[in-house]
């Protein structure tokens, strides 16, 4: 069983994707076309990008429920700033606004020692309120059509969101696995007090993590806002579930300390495949919620099994 679970941790998500692909290939004649596949990958890019940030947060032993509010806030700022200061500057400023929301999360969690659930739940409401206030409760149409090219354009036949997904995967891969910051994040997740004693600035690590989560949410929001050309104060309702599902399904352990960035990326693509399949069946959007919720419960079930067997193995003295 332990061997199976270890294998699952590494390759489980491939099985999901493979099974999904086989099913879709039979269900739809259009599935095996390049355009369809690129489209599915592009649709999965949002969950993947925010998933990178969430993977870091879960690795550090926390998590962030405020991502969808941060996305909404970024979207609103983009739509207001673009006519005033131009597209590039507006993107930079909006991303800074998003990141600062994350810094506030981090400050409350690390300095005030409020637990991440309460902090990000509270911040989620505050940030959403601010987004609605700034936008006056309305959607704001962006008139600058060139902005649209970010989310809908293609380079060498590949949609831009895929580039965003791949580039940030590379960056986060380096941060998580190759930088001292990444190692500190994992260390904080597995044993915070030990890390503190060994001289790492735990508070700074946590603030950095939540800033990064908010930054990824901001990035996803830039791409989405550009596709819709509308600043949406109520953007992405329920998106946090997708992001957490992707992170946990990808094999990042809820107990902290172990990131699985590849898993996050692939799980995002898997969820996107589910959406595509549900669209094929012409099911309403509510079934997407149901499907993602069910997948999350399934991923939790497997995670629960894993933890239980790991504990049993440790009790018996088997090396894992």
């Amino acid at each position, binding site marked *: 069983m332990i061997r199976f679970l270890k294998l699952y941790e590494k390759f489980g998500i491939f099985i999901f994707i493979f099974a999904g692909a086989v099913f879709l290939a039979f269900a739809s004649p259009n599935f095996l076309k390049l355009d369809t596949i690129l489209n599915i990958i592009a649709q999965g890019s949002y969950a993947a990008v925010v998933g990178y940030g969430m993977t870091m947060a879960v690795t550090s032993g926390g998590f962030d429920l405020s991502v969808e509010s941060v996305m909404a806030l970024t979207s609103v700022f983009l739509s207001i700033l673009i006519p005033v200061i131009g597209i590039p500057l507006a993107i930079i400023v909006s991303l800074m606004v998003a990141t600062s929301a994350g810094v506030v999360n981090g400050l409350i969690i690390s300095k*005030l020692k409020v637990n991440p659930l*309460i*902090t990000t739940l509270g911040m989620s409401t505050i940030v959403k*309120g601010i987004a609605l206030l700034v936008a006056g409760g309305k959607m704001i149409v962006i008139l600058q059509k060139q902005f649209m090219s970010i989310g809908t354009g293609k380079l060498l036949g590949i949609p831009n969101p895929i580039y965003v997904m791949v580039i940030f995967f590379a960056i986060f891969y380096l941060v998580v696995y190759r930088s001292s910051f990444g190692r500190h994040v994992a260390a904080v997740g597995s044993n915070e007090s030990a890390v503190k004693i060994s001289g790492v600035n735990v508070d700074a690590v946590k603030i950095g993590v939540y800033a990064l989560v908010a930054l990824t949410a901001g990035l996803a929001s830039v791409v989405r806002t550009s596709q819709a050309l509308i600043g949406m104060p109520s953007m992405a309702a329920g998106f946090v579930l997708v992001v957490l599902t992707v992170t*946990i399904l990808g094999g990042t352990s809820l107990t902290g300390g172990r990131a699985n960035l590849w898993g996050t990326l692939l799980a995002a693509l898997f969820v996107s495949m589910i959406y595509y399949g549900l669209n094929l069946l012409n099911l309403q959007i*509510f079934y997407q919620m149901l499907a993602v*919720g069910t997948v999350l419960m399934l991923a939790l079930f497997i995670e629960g099994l894993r933890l239980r067997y790991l504990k049993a193995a440790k009790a018996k003295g088997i090396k894992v």
Partner: protein
Amino acid sequence: MVWAANRWENFGLPFLVAILLLVFSLLSSPFRSSYSLVSNLSFSSLVGIGSIGMVFCIMSGDFDISIGSMSALAGVLGASMVTRIGSPAAMLLTIALASLFGFVNGVFVTKLRIPAFITTLGMQFVYRALAYIYTTNTPVYIEDKLWLSIGSGSVLGIPFPILLMALCFAAALYVLRKTPFGRYVIAVGTNKNAAMLSGINVDFVKMAVFTLVGFFVGIATVVTASYLGSVNPGQTGQGYEFRVITIVVLGGTALTGGNGNLLGAFFAALFITYMETGLGMLQVNSYWQYVATGFVLIFAVGINRVKSAVLGQRDT
């Protein structure tokens, strides 16, 4: 300092509620009418009753953030049955279904051994989606007189929701203080392993606690549905978990478990309800209310931490 912290534990919230009432009464004349004060007290039962189960849940060391969706699903299922089984049975069905959903949460939490907030986050979306699918996203209207009278009726001049809330709090206080179950909940929340070693069936206690959460949410759903005359699969219970958790934490229940405060939750429910309607009557932009409640939640945790630090208890 210790004196202040002790006084805060007992009198802090009633004091805050009094100040809030005073300030809003001075600022807004509609607010200080006795009609508005009493009707807001009845409104506070919506969150007040719902927070009772959550006090037990947080005391036992867990969270349930699926209660909003649970309320919507139990509500649409119950309300749609009124014409078929009559309203008393439909109301009981709503409460029974909510308890069942709570029980399901409890089974997942105890058997999977996954932190409850994430299990219930998943269930939050499952319940909400089922509510949408069952109704194909149309509200279920309640035309039954008996059900509608729950919110508007009164006994001896006291509105029925207030009586119901008082009854629920009294029963919960009794269970918490006078029954073995109440002590088991405290024991599980304080130290799970110690509770297990001393022969308490921890899984059973947790499942019972989650069922209780559902039970009280079910009662609150019946009252809410009666006020609104309908249950909406999308709107009912939206943000409910957030408000209820805010109330429980503001009421002084420690997030680490083991330390619950039911009366505090009652006063916190008053505080939140009066704050929301007060801001509404002053015609403050309703979006400020999001910001305000968010701050109240984080402030409440901060206050609890300061209090525990002074009194030397463990917290968060």
